[in-house]
C-alpha cells in the first residue's frame, strides 16, 4: 500500500445510544448523541492528537474505531478496508492490527495476573503462544522494549508504580505488532514527572517501530509535544480535521492553551448548517456562553474545515 493512502479514515462518524423506556413494551424515547459527525484521517506513521474537553466524546470515538461500540452512522476505513459493519468473526484478525493503551494504569491490568501473562495475553488469545520458550522470549523482548526489567515478569500489577504499569499496558498493545495504537489519555492519570517519560517512550517506539498513534488527551501541552497534527472535538458533535491543509481562520489562538479550558469557537456555528436537531441543543448554558443563538457566517463551509492544524 502506498504511503499516501491514509491508515485510518473516519467519515462523519456518529455514535448514538438509544434511551429506552418500558420493560416489556420497549420503545425508544430518544437518544444520547455521544458522537455526531466526526471526520478525520490518520496517515501512516504519524501521531494524530485528538483533543477536546472531557465528556465531548473522544473516548467514544476511540471505542467506535476499535469497534467496541457500533457506529450509528458514518464510515470507518482502516488499512483500505471498510470496517464499519464487520461481523464478530471478521473482527478478530482486525483486532491484531489496532490496539489500545488505556487511561487508567490501575484498572486496565488484571490484578490476578502476573506481568508476563498480561503482556503475553494477546499472543495467547491469537494462538501465538504454542511454543513456550519463544513465547517467554517474546514477552522478555517486549518488556525490554518498554523499559521494564526482565525479572519483573513474575510480579503482579500492584507491585508496580503507575508509570511501570502504563509501560506494561504499552507492551501489551505492542505484542501483536499492530499498525495503529489508540492511546486514550495514556498519561493523564500519571504523575507529571512520569508523564514525560511515558510520552517520550511512546515517541521512541514510534520511531523504532513505525507506529501510527491516535492520541487522545485533554492536556494540550502533552498533545502538542507528541502530535504531528491535531484535531479538536467540541461537545459531542465534532470538529476535525484538516485533511487539506486549509485552516479555517487562524486556529491556533482560538484553542487557548489553558488545558481544559481550551475551546474553539467556530466549530459550533459551522455544525449548525441547517440540521433540524442542532448538536448543541443539549447545552443551553454553553450556547449562551458561546453566543450560538444564530449561525454566523464565518467562512466555514463544511465540517471538515472546523478545526485547524496547530503546526
Amino acid at each position, binding site marked *: 500500500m502506498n504511503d499516501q493512502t491514509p491508515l485510518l479514515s473516519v467519515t462523519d462518524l456518529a455514535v448514538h445510544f438509544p434511551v429506552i423506556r418500558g*420493560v416489556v413494551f420497549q420503545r425508544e424515547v430518544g437518544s444520547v448523541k455521544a458522537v455526531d459527525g466526526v471526520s478525520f484521517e490518520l496517515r501512516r506513521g504519524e501521531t494524530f492528537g485528538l483533543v477536546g474537553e472531557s465528556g465531548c466524546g473522544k473516548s467514544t470515538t476511540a471505542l467506535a474505531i476499535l469497534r467496541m461500540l457500533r457506529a450509528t452512522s458514518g464510515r470507518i476505513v482502516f488499512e483500505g478496508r471498510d470496517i464499519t459493519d464487520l461481523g464478530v468473526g471478521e473482527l478478530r484478525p482486525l483486532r491484531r492490527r489496532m490496539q489500545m493503551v488505556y487511561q487508567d494504569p490501575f484498572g486496565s491490568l488484571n490484578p490476578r495476573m502476573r506481568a508476563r501473562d498480561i503482556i503475553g495475553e494477546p499472543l495467547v488469545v491469537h494462538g501465538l503462544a504454542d511454543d513456550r520458550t519463544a513465547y517467554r522470549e517474546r514477552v522478555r523482548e517486549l518488556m525490554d522494549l518498554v523499559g521494564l526489567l526482565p525479572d519483573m515478569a513474575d510480579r503482579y500489577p500492584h*507491585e508496580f508504580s503507575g508509570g511501570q504499569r502504563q509501560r506494561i499496558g504499552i507492551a501489551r498493545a505492542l505484542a501483536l505488532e499492530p499498525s495503529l495504537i489508540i492511546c486514550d489519555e495514556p498519561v493523564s492519570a500519571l504523575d507529571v514527572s512520569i508523564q514525560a517519560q511515558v510520552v517520550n517512550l511512546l515517541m521512541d517506539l514510534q520511531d523504532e517501530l513505525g507506529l501510527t498513534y491516535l492520541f487522545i488527551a485533554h492536556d494540550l501541552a502533552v498533545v502538542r509535544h507528541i502530535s504531528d497534527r491535531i484535531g479538536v472535538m467540541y461537545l459531542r458533535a465534532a470538529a476535525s480535521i484538516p485533511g487539506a491543509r486549509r485552516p479555517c481562520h487562524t486556529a491556533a489562538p482560538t484553542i487557548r492553551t489553558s488545558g481544559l479550558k481550551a475551546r474553539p469557537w467556530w466549530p459550533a456555528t459551522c455544525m449548525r448548517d441547517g440540521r433540524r436537531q442542532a448538536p448543541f441543543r443539549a447545552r443551553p448554558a454553553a450556547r449562551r456562553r458561546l453566543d450560538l443563538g444564530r449561525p454566523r457566517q464565518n467562512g466555514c463551509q463544511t465540517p471538515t474545515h472546523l478545526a485547524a492544524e496547530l503546526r
Partner: protein
Amino acid sequence: MSDLAYAPPLTTLAGPRPALITFLVRLVREKPLGAVGGAVFLVFLLCGIFADFLAPYGVNETNMAHRLEAPSWDFPLGTDHLGRDVLSRILIGAQLSMIVAFLAAGFATVVSLAIGVVSGYFGGKTDMVVQRGVDAWMTFPDLVLLIVIISVVGPGVVQIVVVLGLLYGIAGSRIVRGAVISVKENMYTHAAQSIGARTWHVLIRHIVPNVMPVVIVLFTTRIGAVILTEAGLSFLGLGVPPPAPTWGSMLSGTGRTYMYLGAWLALAPGLCLTIVVYAINVYGDALRDLLDPRMRGSQ
C-alpha cells in the same frame, strides 16, 4: 527514571519450593487462625474418612443394658435411648454430614457461579430473563420448596445434595452476579475484549478469578448452612433416612427429645457442628486472603 528503579520483591522466598509447601507456610505464618481452622477441619475430615476403623462400636449396634448412659471410659460420649454409642455415631455421622455438606455446598457454588456469570456478564435480555427466574424461585420459602421437592423425589443422600445445591445455588447466584457486574466494568475486561479474546477466555481468565473471593466465602458459608438445613430436614423426617446418623438428625432427633435426661446427646453433635462450621469459615476467610495476590506479604 524513578519508576524504573528496581524495588525488591515484597516477599522473599528462599529458593523455589513446591507451591503446596509455600502455601502452607504462608497459611501458618500469615493466617494462624485460618491454619487452626484448616487443621481442625482436616481432623474431622480424616475422622469421617476413617470412621469405620475408628468407631469403637457399630453405628446401629444397640445395647439395651446401657441406655442413656453418661460418658464413661466404655462410652466416651455416652449412649442414646437405644443404647447406641454416641461417639461411633458422631464419627459415622461426620462421614455423612461431610459428604452431604461438601457435595451440596460445592454443587451450590457451581450453580451460583454458572448462573451468576452468565447473567452478570451477558446482561441485557439474558440477565432479565435469568433474574426473573431467580426471583420466582426465591419467592418460595426455602423449607417449603425443600419439603415439596423431597416429598416428590424421596429422601436420600443424592436427592438432598441436588436439592440443597439447587436451592442455595440459585439464591447465591445473585451475589456472584453482582460481583461479576462490578468486575466486568473493569478496564482489563475491556482490554481483553479489544485484544480479540473470545468470550470464554474473558470469563475464565478475567471474570472468574476476580470473583473468586466472593465464591470462596459463598462456599464456606454454604457448608454451615447446608449442615443446618439437613438437620432441619432430618427433623421433619425428610433428611438422610434413619437409622443412618447425621449430626443434624442426632441433634434434632434424639438430642432434643432426651436433652434433660442426657445433655451429652445434644452437646456432642451440637459442638461438633459448631466447631466444624466455624473452622471452615475461618479457613475460608484465610484462603480468600491468601489467594489474593494483592495480599502478598501483608498481614
